[in-house]
């Protein structure tokens, strides 16, 4: 009986150590890979810091800077600025925007930088934040910010129209 008990204890130790070791190893690998390689998109500061070459395809995400949204005369092309409150990247997109696209809201875009530093996107996805609320009681967006040029941010108390 004593032998059975020690064997159970042994299995308990081996199983616990094995689970902890495997979990630790996988988590270490994930952290070693770093945030950028496992993240879906780059934010404007990272784009500036990395000096990404023209024509290389990547995803750019951040907030649509308040007051930056302009519809071009052809009625299909949209220009706006994506900001992370530390840096900006101008974006040009031709296509249909998702319903949740708004100034001050998060977006994830996919495309390439062109020679004059504009990000030409072929995909724009709206990023919904974690706030839920009934109509007319819009919660304060914790991420909302004025972007570096100090452009007036009307976001936070205006209605969420485009």
């Amino acid at each position: 009986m004593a032998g059975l008990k020690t064997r159970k204890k042994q299995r308990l130790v081996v199983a616990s150590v094995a689970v902890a070791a495997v979990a630790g190893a996988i988590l270490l690998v994930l952290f070693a890979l770093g945030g950028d390689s496992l993240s879906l998109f780059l934010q404007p500061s990272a784009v500036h810091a990395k000096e990404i070459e023209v024509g290389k395809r990547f995803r750019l995400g951040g907030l649509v800077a308040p007051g930056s949204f302009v519809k071009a005369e052809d009625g299909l092309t949209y220009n706006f600025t994506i900001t992370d409150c530390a840096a900006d990247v101008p974006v040009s997109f031709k296509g249909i925007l998702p319903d949740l696209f708004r100034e001050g809201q998060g977006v994830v875009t996919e495309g390439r930088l062109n020679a004059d530093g504009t990000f030409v996107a072929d995909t724009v996805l709206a990023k919904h934040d974690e706030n839920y609320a009934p109509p007319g009681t819009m919660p304060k967006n914790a991420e909302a910010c004025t972007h570096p040029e100090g452009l007036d941010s009307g976001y936070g108390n205006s209605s969420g129209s485009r």
Partner: protein
Amino acid sequence: MHRFANPAEFNRLADAILPWAKIIMAAAFAYGLYLALFTSPPDYQQGESVRIMYVHVPAAWMSMFTYMVVAAASFTALVWRHPVALLAGKAAAPIGATFTALALITGMLWGKPMWGTYWVWDGRLTSVLVLFFLYLGYMALWRGLDEEDKAGRAASILALVGVVNIPIIKFSVDWWNTLHQPSSVMRMDGPTMPAEMLWPLLTVALAFKAYFIVVFLYRMKLEINLRKLTVLSSIEARG
């Protein structure tokens, strides 16, 4: 704990719990869905699409909860060699796989109108897909080996290796940039939704949990009876 390792004892306990679990399940489903579909307000941005959340979020919670049940059962089975623990993992896995599939499908149906796409390979979506494959792998290992005990042990080891995926799912939205939004309910500074949305969500979550208990107990009883049948027929074959 050791008491429930006895199949007869387990059956008695299951029969005592089942009627209550069924009542809670029926009541919580009816009340929760009524709240979710009729009385709760639309969202200021998502409009009526927010109602998908009342199924999606509880399903996602259950996908992780059920995995922890499978993992705990696997650990118990490997360390203490309890046959009932081994069967508990086997009984729970298909329920977890179903909840995971439900979370993935409802998420995609919400994603298309809200994000503008059914799917992106971000940290949250990818790690939940991995969870789904872990369930499938666990179930496949049970069927893949002829000897039940060996099959169960192999499946249990896979289940334990996969445990690391649970914190990855939970914190994927904090560690990495994702398209998926961060947690709204399970967060340090309290839920980011008003009570009239939180209540239907929690009620449906309760209904899902009761549903899990009902189906899990029936599947356990089935597995135990199947084992009994195998033993009896082998005795009969010999006699």
